[in-house]
């Protein structure tokens, strides 16, 4: 039986919409990678940027800065978001407080990053200067934590919610305490979802520029402590483009960023898939 | 009400059992009329009629098995089916005794001559008739109290039966019988034996109906 013509038109349009997404992604990736990949070399990755960002140097200190800033953000946001999610999902019932907290997380996630950056600047850089060292890895990381927190909180909460109630009942029914049930049954089951939430948050942290611009300082030297100012890759990319119009280095940096994010995505996907499979006994 | 089809099938079953009972009761009455009036033609019809009773027996058994196999009957439904299943055997046996009596009537071919008082015999006949009728009536939804009196009525029938046998044996022993009446006495001995057995089956039916209505297994002893 031939498909009706009237069926094929909407189907074709929807197919086009789906394909468009894929095409856009491929074009961006191909363009950046084709421009940037030739630049990537061991030298590029292990050499510091020139003082004035001149060509022929590398991005070593900026990679380090990205790792440090993201690390601080995750270290702060992970326990807060997972702990918060456990509290919300396991210890409170669906009530006003829970709705308010969830709404707050959503609003926080929706605040433009430049405004979060502004707050980070006023609070961490200026007000807490004696502790954070002003513009620093710490100020940048803590500011980013605000942006990671709502994302991973919401996703962790969903992951916990997806753990079947029967498992909790089963555990409690065997005389386990609530805390034992959470640590031995609920969390291991929800782990893939929780990790996904953290990875998404981490992706946000790695890619963030505006908030970093106002809080990390942008110094190109190799950092030695959390209180040193730093220039993560995104900020470096922004700087060399706007200040020196150095598109070559910008493409190279962008390629490294993209590869890093792709690598993290694929590796965690793979890890979580095999963990889920193990959980399901496949 | 749920399970309409099932409820209808149960009703059909009960109606069939009642119909079979009515048919059996009529056979009992007819054969006793034939005996009283020496109506061999009627006795022949009664014999032919037994096929109908047997047909009912098989049909109802099959209905019961279907209900048991497919409907998982419980509580009173279960008791109705179990009772029906057993009761049709009682009815079928009554039908067989009716045929036996009818055959005696046909064999004698003329009014019966007996050497003892007819009163006790008439009483026995009337009692058996009414018990058969009552047993079927209680199943059809009549007064269950009647069924409870069956044991006592059966005792009376047993007494009459023994009494008549005794009288006839005495008559024989005392040589009160002519050569002709001896064969009548023999026939009569059979007939009252059949009547007594019919009453036993009626008692069975009464007890089963008590169980069916009240679920008390005491009546099934």
């Amino acid at each position, binding site marked *: 039986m031939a498909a009706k013509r009237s069926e094929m038109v909407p189907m074709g349009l929807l197919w086009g919409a789906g394909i468009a997404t894929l095409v856009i992604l491929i074009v961006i990736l191909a363009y950046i990678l084709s421009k940037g990949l030739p630049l990537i070399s061991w030298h590029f990755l292990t050499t510091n940027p020139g003082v004035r960002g001149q060509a022929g140097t590398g991005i070593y200190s900026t990679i380090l800065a990205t790792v440090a800033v993201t690390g601080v953000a995750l270290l702060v946001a992970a326990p807060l978001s997972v702990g918060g999610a456990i509290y919300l999902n396991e210890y409170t019932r669906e009530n006003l407080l829970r709705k308010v907290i969830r709404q707050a997380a959503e609003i926080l996630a929706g605040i433009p990053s430049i405004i979060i950056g502004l707050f980070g600047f006023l609070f961490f850089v200026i007000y807490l200067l004696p502790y954070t060292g002003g513009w620093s890895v710490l100020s940048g990381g803590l500011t980013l934590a605000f942006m990671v927190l709502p994302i991973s909180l919401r996703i962790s909460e969903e992951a916990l919610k997806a753990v079947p109630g029967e498992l909790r009942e089963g555990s*409690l029914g065997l005389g386990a305490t609530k805390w034992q049930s959470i640590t031995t049954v609920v969390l291991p089951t929800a782990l893939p979802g929780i990790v996904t939430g953290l990875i998404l948050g981490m992706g946000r942290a790695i890619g963030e520029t505006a908030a970093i611009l106002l809080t990390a300082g942008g110094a190109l030297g190799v950092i030695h402590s959390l209180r040193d100012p730093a220039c993560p890759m995104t900020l470096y990319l922004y700087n060399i483009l706007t200040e020196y119009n150095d598109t070559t280095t910008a493409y190279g940096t962008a390629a490294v960023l993209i590869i890093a994010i792709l690598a993290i995505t694929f590796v965690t996907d793979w890890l979580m898939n095999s963990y889920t499979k193990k959980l*399901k*006994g496949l | 009400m*749920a*399970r309409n089809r099932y409820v209808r099938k149960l009703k059909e079953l009960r109606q069939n059992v009642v119909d079979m009972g009515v048919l059996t009761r009529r056979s009992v009455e007819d054969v006793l009329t034939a005996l009283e009036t020496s109506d061999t033609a009627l006795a022949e019809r009664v014999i032919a009629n037994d096929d109908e009773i047997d047909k009912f027996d098989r049909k109802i058994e099959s209905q019961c098995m279907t209900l048991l196999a497919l409907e998982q009957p419980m*509580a009173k439904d279960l008791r109705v089916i179990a009772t029906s299943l057993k009761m049709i055997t009682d009815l079928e046996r009554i039908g067989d005794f009716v045929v036996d009596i009818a055959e005696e009537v046909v064999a004698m071919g003329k009014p019966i001559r007996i050497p003892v008082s007819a009163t006790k015999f008439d009483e026995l006949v009337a009692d058996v008739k009414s018990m058969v009728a009552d047993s079927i009536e209680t199943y059809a939804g009549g007064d269950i109290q009647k069924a409870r009196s069956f044991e006592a009525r059966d005792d009376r029938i047993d007494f009459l039966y023994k009494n008549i046998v005794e009288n006839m044996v005495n008559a024989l022993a005392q040589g009160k019988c002519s050569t002709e009446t001896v064969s009548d006495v023999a026939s009569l001995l059979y007939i009252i034996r059949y009547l007594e057995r019919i009453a036993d089956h009626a008692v069975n039916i009464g007890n089963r109906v008590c169980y069916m209505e009240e679920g008390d297994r005491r009546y099934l002893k």
Partner: protein
Amino acid sequence: MNNAIEISVKDLDLWFGKFQALKKISIDIPKNKVTALIGPSGCGKSTFIKTLDRMNDLVDNVKITGEVVYQGRNILDSDTDVVELRKQIGMVFQKPNPFPKSIFDNVAYGPRVHGVRKKANLNEVVERSLKAAALWEEVKDRLNESALRLSGGQQQRLCIARLLAVEPEVLLMDEPASALDPIATSKIEDLIYELKKDYTIVIVTHNMQQAARVSSNTAFFYLGELVEFASTIDLFERPRDKRTEDYVTGKFG
């Protein structure tokens, strides 16, 4: 004949908010027997069974009055050690709910949370429990495989084994076979029949034939009331209450 009472319930009322789910329930659950609870959906039988190990505590807005006396104590008292209670009164749920762990770890879960650490002891408990749940022969060579790879019926027996490992006195079963095929169901029923020698079992079931097959006594719940509690044969052959009669003959509504 052992006529001891395991759990004695008196005048139990239970409300979810304004809705009264259980009305003046009084019932003595005999020891080492299987007691079946039947009734239409929403009649309160599941709510009732959950009250026996305080699982209704997990629900919002519950108010319970009356007595549930177990081992001489009213377990509804607020100072009842719920964790200890649930060790003694275990529950098997409608849907098999093995943890996403190995078969061994599932059975060892209870003993572990109660502090058993020695591998030898755990091995012993796991083997004994799996044997008691008639699952040992099927899984003894793959104890380290995930429990989720077992069939539904095996999973349910695993959940029973998991429960037996904490050595309870009472097993509550909330429609334990309703998600299983007939063969798996009959294995569970055989198991229940075996277990009643050592345990008091209370089973909620939608399946009247199942109640008839496995239980010694049956309680019929309707609209939050305990309508009739009798020996199983009496309840199914000669119920006293019209509502029970209508329910067991399937002529409800």
